[in-house]
Each structure stands twice: as structure tokens, then as C-alpha cells.
């Protein structure tokens, strides 16, 4: 006898399944399909191979596997796919998850231990999934005296702002979610939101530790946002544009780190401070103020903050790559798509399948993405490294570093950039016109 479901009867189970299927079909045909057609009436349908893609046409093509590829290709270029999957949230979240795993193993190697080992058989690769499940299943505790609406919305705002930041990073030529002509200004505007969220949630939690942590976060971010903006000014002077894609295009021959090394160093220190990572993790200093402004978050609220933090880490590393390391530019290493698959088809035994519409992605985009990912992962590893070798800095030294040293260094590089510009070495728009 089963102890899990002692009242289980197979006949009733099958009957209930039929019941569910009946109701689903009824509701789908009476409510679902009309709603779908109403929505489709207002949406501009894409044009594939000269024909407008109506739902009937799409269903007709789905019956023919060789004609589904154009639909997929069209889907790949919709804004929806850009936001959800490739240059946007999904890609960033995947890289962020990989970053968490790499960080734990990397730090473990520095500290002479093994890191996650058991979950997932191979080197604990599923540890992150286990941690995520644990966070989801934990109870969310809201302090009784908290300002509940703001406290609830804080983690969501944090992830949303991090997602907005991610959407501004161009991954390959033409592959970017949002490409405003003032992209760099949009970046500054987005990262200006983070201290507001920290202070709001810290105040809303109504706890002394969150209060101190929130104020520390505010101090730190304002002190480091100014040198961060100033360090990027030399790039703007050199390129003459604020658009991130154009900044990448201007680095086809030389990366800006060659002409603005001081800016790169200042920017790198500033991103570590903005990310609240060791040695600048004062807002979360464990031995002083418990967990700083994150003290009262529990369960998935804390998980969302962590997700946002790692999205932010990816976005900052991507921004460093875009501004200083040439973004997607790099030697062509991706093999070209074998052309005879398109012309002759794939022969498997007696069957020859012709698949029009291949390749899904062009060689340029794949190569650009590869180089972008390689450079970004390198920058992320550099950002992770100080955690293994530095203790936490103190608040007065932190402010001194931000306000005195980094601003001065950023100005030095601005003067270097202006000198290069007026000496005629570089014109606006890059090294080669």
C-alpha cells in the first residue's frame, strides 16, 4: 500500500485527466482563440519571404519542417526575443549563473579548498540550482514595523534596474536590446538608480543595521559615481559619440585602453566599488553591521537581490569590454558556414534533406559574440580576484580614495585625451576615419 496517496484510484485519476482535457479544450476554443485573434488583429505581422505571416500561414508552414526555419529566423529578430533571450535577460542571467559557479570554484582554489563538489556529480555544477531551490522554498519574513510596499518592491526594482542596464550593452554588431544615441548617458542614468533603491529598502526595513548599511551604500556610490563618469569622459572626447555601438565600431584597429589606460584603471576600481565587492563591500560588512542593507531580506527576496547583483556585475564587465577592450572586435576565428549544406542539402543515408534558411546566425555575429564573451569573462575574473586577497577597506579611506585620488586620476586622462585630440593624432570618431 502506498503511504504517499492511500486513497489513490487509477480509474478516478484517468477520469480526472479527461475532465481536465475537456475543460482546457473548451476554454481554449471559446475564450483563448478569440483573444489570440483579437490580439493578432492589432499586431503588425512580420513579412517572411515576401508574404505576410498570418496565423494560418504560420500553421501551414509548421506542418512543413523545411519552412519553419524562416519563422524561427524572424522570431530571432523580434524585440521580444532580444529582451527575453539573447542580448538581453536570458543571456545575461546565464552568464551571471556561470559567474557564480566560477567565482566559488575560483575562490576555493585560491583558498586551498575544493568548493562545491557533490551536487550534480561533476564538480558541483548543480550547486547553484540547489541554492536557488532552497531560496525559493524559504519563508519570506517581513518585519512587523517595515514599510511594506517599499520593502516588497525593493528587490524587484533592483532586478529591473539591473535588467535595464543589461539591455544597453551591445553584444554583437546589431545585437543590442536598446540602442539610444545617448547610450552612455543612459548608462549613467541607470546606475544612478541603485543607491536610491538601497536607501529606500534600507529605510523601509526599519532596522538599525539596514539603516547604517543603506547610508554607507549611498556614500560609497555617490563617491564613486563621479570618478566613474569622469573616467569615461576621455572616451567620449576621443570618439565624439555617446552611442555604445559606435564606440565599439571606432575600436576596430586600436582599443581605447591603449590611449586611456588611467581611465581604464579608474573605471575598474569604480566598478568594484559600485558592485559592493571586496575590498569595497562596506554596505554589507558582515562583522560590523550584520549584512548591511540586505539584513532583513529573506528567501527569494534575497535571491532576487543576488540575481540583480550578478546581472549588474555582467553589465559592468560588458561595459568595460565595450568601452576599453573593443567590444565584439577581434580576429575572425569562427569557421564559415559550409555552403554546400544550403545548395546540396544534408545527405543521411538514402535521404537528402534540403533545408533552406540556414544558417540561422551569420558568421560575423557569432564571431563577435565569441569575442565579447571571452573579453567579458576575463574582466569578470579580474573583478572576482580581489575577493581572495584583500580585506575590507574602512569608510574614511573609501571616501578619501573616491573623492581625492580617483577624481584626480580621471582628470589626468581627460587632459591626455584632449592633448591627443588637439595634436591631431586622433580625430573625433576614432583613430581611422
Amino acid at each position, binding site marked *: 500500500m502506498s503511504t504517499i496517496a492511500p486513497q489513490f484510484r487509477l480509474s478516478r485519476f484517468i477520469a480526472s485527466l479527461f475532465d481536465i482535457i475537456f475543460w482546457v479544450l473548451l476554454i481554449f476554443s471559446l475564450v483563448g482563440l478569440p483573444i489570440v485573434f483579437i490580439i493578432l488583429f492589432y499586431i503588425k505581422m512580420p513579412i517572411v519571404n515576401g508574404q505576410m505571416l498570418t496565423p494560418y500561414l504560420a500553421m501551414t508552414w509548421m506542418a512543413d519542417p523545411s519552412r519553419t526555419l524562416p519563422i524561427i529566423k524572424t522570431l530571432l529578430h523580434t524585440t521580444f526575443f532580444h529582451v527575453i533571450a539573447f542580448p538581453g535577460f536570458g543571456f545575461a542571467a546565464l552568464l551571471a549563473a556561470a559567474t557564480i559557479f566560477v567565482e566559488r570554484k575560483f575562490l576555493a582554489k585560491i583558498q586551498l579548498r575544493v568548493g562545491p563538489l557533490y551536487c550534480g556529480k561533476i564538480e558541483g555544477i548543480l550547486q547553484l540550482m540547489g541554492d536557488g531551490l532552497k531560496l525559493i522554498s524559504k519563508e519570506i519574513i517581513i518585519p512587523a514595523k517595515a514599510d511594506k510596499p517599499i520593502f516588497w518592491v525593493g528587490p524587484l526594482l533592483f532586478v529591473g534596474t539591473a535588467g535595464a542596464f543589461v539591455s544597453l550593452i551591445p553584444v554583437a554588431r546589431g545585437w543590442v536590446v536598446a540602442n539610444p544615441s545617448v547610450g552612455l548617458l543612459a548608462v549613467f542614468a541607470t546606475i544612478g538608480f541603485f543607491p536610491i533603491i538601497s536607501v529606500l529598502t534600507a529605510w523601509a526595513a526599519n532596522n538599525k543595521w539596514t539603516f547604517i548599511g543603506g547610508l554607507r551604500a549611498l556614500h560609497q556610490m555617490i563617491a564613486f559615481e563621479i570618478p566613474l563618469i569622469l573616467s569615461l569622459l576621455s572616451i567620449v572626447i576621443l570618439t565624439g559619440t555617446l552611442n555604445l555601438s559606435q564606440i565599439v565600431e571606432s575600436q576596430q584597429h586600436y582599443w581605447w585602453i591603449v590611449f586611456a589606460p588611467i581611465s581604464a584603471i579608474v573605471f575598474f576600481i569604480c566598478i568594484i566599488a559600485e558592485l559592493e565587492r571586496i575590498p569595497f563591500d562596506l554596505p554589507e560588512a558582515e*562583522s560590523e553591521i550584520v549584512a548591511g542593507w540586505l539584513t532583513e531580506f529573506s528567501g527569494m527576496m534575497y535571491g532576487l537581490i543576488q540575481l540583480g547583483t550578478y546581472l549588474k556585475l555582467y553589465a559592468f564587465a560588458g561595459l568595460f569590454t565595450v568601452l576599453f577592450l573593443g567590444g565584439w572586435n577581434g580576429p575572425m576565428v569562427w569557421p564559415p558556414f559550409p555552403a554546400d549544406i544550403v545548395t546540396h542539402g544534408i545527405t543521411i543515408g538514402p535521404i537528402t534533406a534540403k533545408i533552406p534558411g540556414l544558417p540561422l546566425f551569420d558568421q560575423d555575429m557569432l564571431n563577435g559574440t565569441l569575442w565579447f564573451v571571452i573579453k567579458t569573462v576575463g574582466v569578470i575574473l579580474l573583478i572576482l580576484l580581489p575577493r581572495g586577497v584583500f*580585506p575590507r577597506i574602512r569608510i574614511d579611506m573609501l571616501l578619501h580614495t573616491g573623492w581625492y585620488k580617483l577624481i584626480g586620476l580621471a582628470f589626468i586622462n581627460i587632459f591626455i585625451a584632449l592633448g591627443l585630440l588637439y595634436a591631431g593624432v586622433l580625430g573625433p570618431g576614432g583613430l581611422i576615419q
Partner: protein
Amino acid sequence: MTAQLPPGIQLEKVDDRIMTLNVGPQHPGSGHMRLIIKIDGDYIVSCDPDPGYVHRGEEKMAEYRNYIQNIPHLERPVIHDSSNILHPYCLAVEELLGIEVPERAKYIRVIASELNRCIYTLYWLAIYGIFLGHSTMFMWPAGDRELFIDLLEAMSGARVTHAYLVPGGVRNDLPANFEERCLRQVDYFEKRLKEYQAVFYKNPILISRTEGTGILSRTDAIRLGTTGSVLRASGVDFDIRKKEPYDVYENLDFETVVMKEGDSYARSYVPYLEMFESCRIIRDAIRKMPKSGSVRTKLKPNPKGGNEEVYKRVESGRGALGYYIVSNNRPEPYRVKISVGSFRNLICMPYLLKGELLGNMPSVYWSLNYWPVEADR
């Protein structure tokens, strides 16, 4: 707010600028105690340490057990330094009962005590690292403790609470080939210690954080009655192993580490340098140790002390650690008073933290070489 208060209770008057923080007992940076800290902005106005959360009545328990039964529970206050906390007890009981300890046992005791001092200091250093946010400095000493824990396991059979030192000598002789193994591990450990210096003590951020914070002057250190590494970091050359040598310390070649600065950095650097001296002592003791002989003088069953009192102290990882034992012709002691270094060093904490930044609280607190469980006993 004009409600009548019960007699004898009055409301505390607090300045609006002052915020009171209860650091502990449930706080990652407090240990088993509470610090009532009042801050004005980021500056500490006053600090009131409130120990006693792990009081276990060890002294009272000792009055109901005989001299041998007292051994295992008396090492519980500081299990990482169990040989050193038993050492003065053994010395005191030996004087009380008039027992002579074999020469080889004295050397073995010194080796065990020095190994244990390294274990304790490494654990302390690990927590100092994590208090300053340096997670590598937590993992490395916590891993290197294994070297000495393994040695003591080979000596005594237990990994942490050894109960190895007993009145009359040590519980059992050294295992075969112990000397070579010990020397090899000590050599390796000294190599590792030099790496600590590169990653921790020469780290610019650590130096800038701890130098000049929580300065304890020489006169204050003496007046407040501090002991151990805190006292030596303030420039007082006082080490019981040198000044009142017990067992065979007068035959061994080592030096007292003294620093003049008296700040958090010096207080954290002195125990580190003392680990090198411990390695020297272990090497010297192994060289000078008689190669064979008895290691334990057998006691009479259920021995009785005379009608007298005795006080013995040793240098533990946290400073002077003394036992005051009064006996009254019975198998159990009449009174056992444990005088520990942790509690004495805690006394100077309110003076050191006044006017410091809140961010200096962990570095000053843990540099006092304070072990909460030992202080509460």
C-alpha cells in the same frame, strides 16, 4: 509619557544624535557576548562589553570532582588551547600532592603546549581574517591547523580536547617516529607562515586599517592589567615562560616578542611572530628531550591534598592563565579559581573603542585576543 515608573527604575536619557547598537549576542561580529555600543554618526561614543552568555560554572563543578576527574571538564573553556589551560592545573596539583614529574614528561608537556598554542593562534588568526573581510585568511589558518591537530591526535588520540596533560606527567608516551614527523610538519608550517605575511600582514589595506587604531599605551596597558600578547604589543617585556619559567622552559632557546606601537596591528602581529618562537621551542625541545624514560608518575588512587592553597600560572595563547586551588584534606578541591587572560584583556576594550570609527570595532575587538568562552568560564 508621564506614566508612573516602578520605584527604582528610571528611563535612560539619550541624546538625539546618539544611536545605541546592540552588537550581539546574535551578531556575526560579536562572539558569545554583547557589546552595547553608542554611536554618534560613525564614531563610537561609548562601548559597554557584556560578557557572561556562556557561563558554565566550571569553578563550581570543580568542587564536586576529585583531582583526576577535574581534568576533562577544565579544558572545556578553551578547547583550542586545551593543553595550556590544563598546564597550570597540573602544576598546581603536583605541588599540592607533592609529586615529582619525570624529565621526559616535562619536555613532552612543553611540546604539547606549544603545539596547542599554535592551534589556538591559528584559529584566532582565522577569525581575525574574517572579521576584516579577508576570507582567504580565514581558510588558510583553519586548514593549517590540521598539521598540529594531526600531531596532537597522534600523541593523545583526540583531535581537539586532548586531556593529555595529567598531574604527574602526561597520559601516554609519544608514538614511534613522532620526532621526525613533528620536525617535518613544523618546517612546512614555517614556510606557510611566511606566505601569511605576504597575503595578510604586508597587505596595504590591512596595514592602513589597523595601524594607529585602538592605541594602548605602555602605562595604560600595565594599569589596566592586560596580559599576554596585548601587553607585549604595548612594549612590556613580560612573558611568564621567561619571567617565571615552569617545566623546562628555562633550558629552551627562545625570545619574547615585543612591539612598541600598541595599536591593533601590533596586537595582531605579536601572536603571529610568537608562532615562529613556538616552532623554535618545539625544535629545541625535541633536540634536548631525553630519548627514553618514564613519562608519568603514578598517583595514589583518589589522592588527597593537604590543608593548603597553591597558585600556579603559565603563559597561554591569551596571556597569563593561573589556577588558585584551595584544598582541605579531601579528595576534592575546596575552591578552584581560574584566572584567565581573556577577561583581563576585555577590560581595556571600552577605553580603546572610545572615539574610534564603527568600522574599527571588529579589528580592535579581536586584536585583544579575547576568547568569550574562556572569559565566562
